[in-house]
């Protein structure tokens, strides 16, 4: 595949992953993407690896499974987002709010305190935030991608 072709292919895969997740709340995996778009599985997996190298999404360690299609998490987390009658999971509080920004919709973030794990809710209503607490970033910005899972 030529570079230009792979860029176009990767754009198609990217748009499918994010649009499908926005529409359903479920992050599609390589087999789902291949079936939905009618492309060979190995080509889809190669595209996912390129997208991961470009930090467009994150694959699970030593795997071609999508772990994070930021802001979406493919697995349940402490940052549950409810909007438009669907449930999503964010990778962190920033991403949970990012899901609502991406959807362009109001919604509720059902999170927990990182320390005591008591329930904390943050709501976006009419585009404005209602909620309390403090957001803490443990890792300096320039080191976020050294271990994005911990970040």
């Amino acid at each position, binding site marked *: 595949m030529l570079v230009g072709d792979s860029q176009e292919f990767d754009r198609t895969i990217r*748009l499918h992953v994010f649009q499908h997740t926005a529409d359903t709340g479920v992050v599609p995996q390589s087999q789902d993407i291949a079936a939905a778009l009618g492309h060979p599985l190995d080509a889809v997996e190669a595209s996912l690896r390129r997208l991961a190298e470009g930090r467009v999404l994150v694959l699970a360690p030593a795997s071609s499974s999508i772990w994070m299609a930021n802001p979406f998490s493919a697995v349940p987390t402490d940052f549950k987002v409810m909007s438009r009658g669907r449930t999503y999971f964010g990778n*962190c509080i*920033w991403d949970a709010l990012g899901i*609502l920004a991406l959807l362009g919709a109001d919604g509720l973030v059902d999170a927990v305190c*990182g*320390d005591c794990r008591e329930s904390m809710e943050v709501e976006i209503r009419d585009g404005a935030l209602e909620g309390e*607490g403090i957001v*803490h970033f443990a890792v*300096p910005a320039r080191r976020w991608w050294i271990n994005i899972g911990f970040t």
Partner: protein
Amino acid sequence: MLLFRSEEHIERWCVRRGLPHGGTMTPGQAWQLARAWYVDKLDVGWRRKTVEEAEAVFAEIGLSGPFWSLR
């Protein structure tokens, strides 16, 4: 990036993990950051922000200093 009930809870979390206190922001700032970062993620022409663009977003919502530097 976690949400905490108060500074006291952040301190306790950091001590328990042997980590220094990091950077903080209000939920309102996090919402501003989320909008700036993700509002266009479904666009055909979306691309990752450059270092300069990302730092400009941080500065716009009041995040400055070494902790928020990307270089």
